[in-house]
């Protein structure tokens, strides 16, 4: 008996799966096939971290559904502020204000809510920004969800974006990768494991503003959140049409992160960060950018992690520690641990 398995039987089925929200290839597929055809316009289509309105206004929005809502080094409140501030900052914008939407579930503790609100205020204080408007709803379910939107001001004379990237440009990151994702994974999946890991969630706007002011050669920035450094580097290659080579020897990875990643069968390159910015600079500005980033407390372990080369193939490669080469691809979606 023959049975034809059609496209609708696979993941293009009429339903959303968790991996559609993973920020990987499957999220891209959903945006390209479902969202953009219906909602697309010239401001939305570039799918940058923030939309640019009126030439000088940046606007961004993000929802936070992290589980557990509290994890070593932070909680959903801190994340919600840092994520939105960072989306504005990497777009070259100075954040002006944040809108906060809380979706609480029936039974959520008042004390826990106070904790979340306090960490929202702490993170906003670090970023030097206020929560300026908000909304609160309650639904049945578990935990809480937060959406934050932010607006910021852009210097219209400062051009940032993937179209500015040229062969020879250097790629920098402000510190070790993989901390946030692995902290949450451990807290969720292996709460009994004792680890020194904590989230790196931090507002990067001060670091970025100082870098932008001191180094004119900065041409592209993106925060390495879901899909990690691999996600940013592969997008950079794909969107610029150029070849990106990451240098494994230059990529800072703490040993606690490496151990946790090995245990869960994950590659730190693909794991989410919440306080890391990938910066592309002109080759002659790389040393100055590195020095400037290292002056900031959030950039002390900044490092040059790769470069853009002239091959027009849109491919990202990793030069490995032992001198090998391999392709880097954007993760598919939900990160799955190994079973052997």
């Amino acid at each position, binding site marked *: *008996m*023959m*049975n*034809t*398995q*059609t*496209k609708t*039987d*696979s*993941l*293009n*089925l009429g*339903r*959303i*799966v*968790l*991996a559609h929200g993973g920020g990987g*290839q*499957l999220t891209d*597929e959903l945006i390209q096939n479902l969202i953009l055809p219906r909602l697309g316009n010239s401001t939305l289509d570039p799918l940058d971290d923030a939309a640019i309105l009126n030439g000088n206004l940046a606007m961004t929005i993000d929802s936070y559904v992290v589980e557990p809502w509290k994890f070593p080094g932070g909680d959903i409140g801190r994340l919600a502020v840092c994520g939105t501030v960072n989306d504005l900052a990497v777009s070259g914008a100075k954040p002006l204000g944040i809108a906060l939407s809380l979706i609480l579930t029936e039974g959520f503790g008042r004390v826990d809510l106070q904790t979340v609100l306090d960490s929202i205020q702490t993170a906003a204080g670090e970023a030097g920004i206020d929560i300026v408007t908000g909304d609160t709803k309650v639904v049945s379910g578990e935990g809480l969800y937060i959406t934050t939107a932010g607006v910021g001001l852009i210097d219209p004379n400062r051009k940032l974006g993937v179209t500015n990237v040229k062969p020879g440009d250097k790629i920098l990151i402000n510190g070790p990768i993989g901390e946030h994702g692995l902290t949450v994974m451990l807290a969720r*999946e*292996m709460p009994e494991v004792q680890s020194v890991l904590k989230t790196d969630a931090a507002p990067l706007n001060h670091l970025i503003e100082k870098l932008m002011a001191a180094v004119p050669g900065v041409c592209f920035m993106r925060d390495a959140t879901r899909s990690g450094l691999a996600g940013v580097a*592969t997008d950079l290659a*794909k969107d610029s049409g150029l070849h990106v080579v990451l240098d494994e020897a230059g990529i800072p990875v703490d040993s606690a992160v490496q151990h946790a990643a090995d245990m*869960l*069968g994950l*590659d730190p390159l693909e794991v989410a960060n919440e306080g890391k910015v990938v910066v592309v600079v002109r080759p002659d500005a790389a040393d100055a950018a590195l020095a400037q980033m290292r002056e900031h407390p959030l950039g002390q372990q900044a490092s040059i992690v790769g470069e853009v080369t002239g091959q027009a*193939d*849109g*491919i990202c490669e*990793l*030069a*490995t*520690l*032992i*001198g*090998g*080469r*391999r*392709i880097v*691809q954007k993760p*598919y979606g*939900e990160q*799955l*641990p*190994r*079973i*052997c």
Partner: protein
Amino acid sequence: MAEHLKQAQIWLERLRTAAAKLDKPAVFMEVCGTHTMSAFRCGLHSLTPDNVKLLSGPGCPVCVTAQSDIDQMIALTQERDAIICTYGDMLRVPGKHGSLEKARSQGANVQVIYSTLDAVKLAAKTPDRQVVLAAVGFETTAPATAAAVKQAKALGLTNFSAMTSHKLVIPAMLGLLAGASGGASGGGGAKIDGFLCPGHVSVIIGSDAYQPILDQYNMPCVISGFEDWQMTRGLARLTEQIGKEKACLVNDYPQVVTPAGNTHAWALLTEVFETATVRWRGMGEIPDSGLILQDAYADYCAMRKFNLTPMPDRELGQCLCGQVITGNVTPAECELFGTACTPINPIGPCMVSAEGTCQAWFKYKRPPGTTPGTTPGTTPLTHDKVEVSA
């Protein structure tokens, strides 16, 4: 330079020296998904001399699982009140009627676990639901299943059971070499000159377990760890054995691998399981190559609990996973690879599993946007054009 990088350089040099002396190309096989991924992640294939090839064998637990077993696990989601606990890798493997992931999106209760004991805890917490542990894997994961079953029995749980498809590595390696297992799609394995033996599995089974491979086939075996320099050393030591009259077993992971293995784990396995002839993808039935629950634990066997009859085995149409895991073809030789079959729209398990050879090729070897396996000028296959025979 860090010590391990020095080691990597030393062993790369030895590998190149040994390779230069070869009369004909040497082909080695790793039989562990972690080795497969580690080799790709560190770019080992790009560093080996042209005349030394490392193939991936039947080492990925999900990939070697017979399609009938996968179909059966997915069918379990239809049981009323059942909660299916699975390791993450099984989630997206396609079966006859979709995957566990698809079933979950349609409302089935499928939970990804990291420890089998979490499934037991869940059963204890939800006495009105039937919790089924879907467990695949080799000697490394089977003890965890055994521990869960034992604990469920000790707790007197009546709502816990396991759908197991545990496999043993040595019979598979012997089966590959014998080329006599006669599976529908693969039959024997590729012709190889040595095995890079899995460090993790060897911790359990011990280095002595490989002796039959040397005795019967005079086949070099090197037990290796997973670091880049360790795998380089393993390949060098295998290559250096080529042309020698008598093959050797080298335990290059002696920190954790003893001759007898982990006797505690074995005691657990022999208490709960017994060996049986089981089906493998691409290799058919291999005698004494699997573990099934003993009669004393029959109450914890999901097949018996839900009164299920074994499903017929089947091959996945044009999918060559069975041939890939026996080393007979490379993923790029499969017509579906990178066209109809991708990590987003996988057809065979080797593309789904994070330790699968096809996924490793797709992720680490195949430049995005290219479609190997297709002839220039022809239209590549798309997922909806692929027929999967039932």
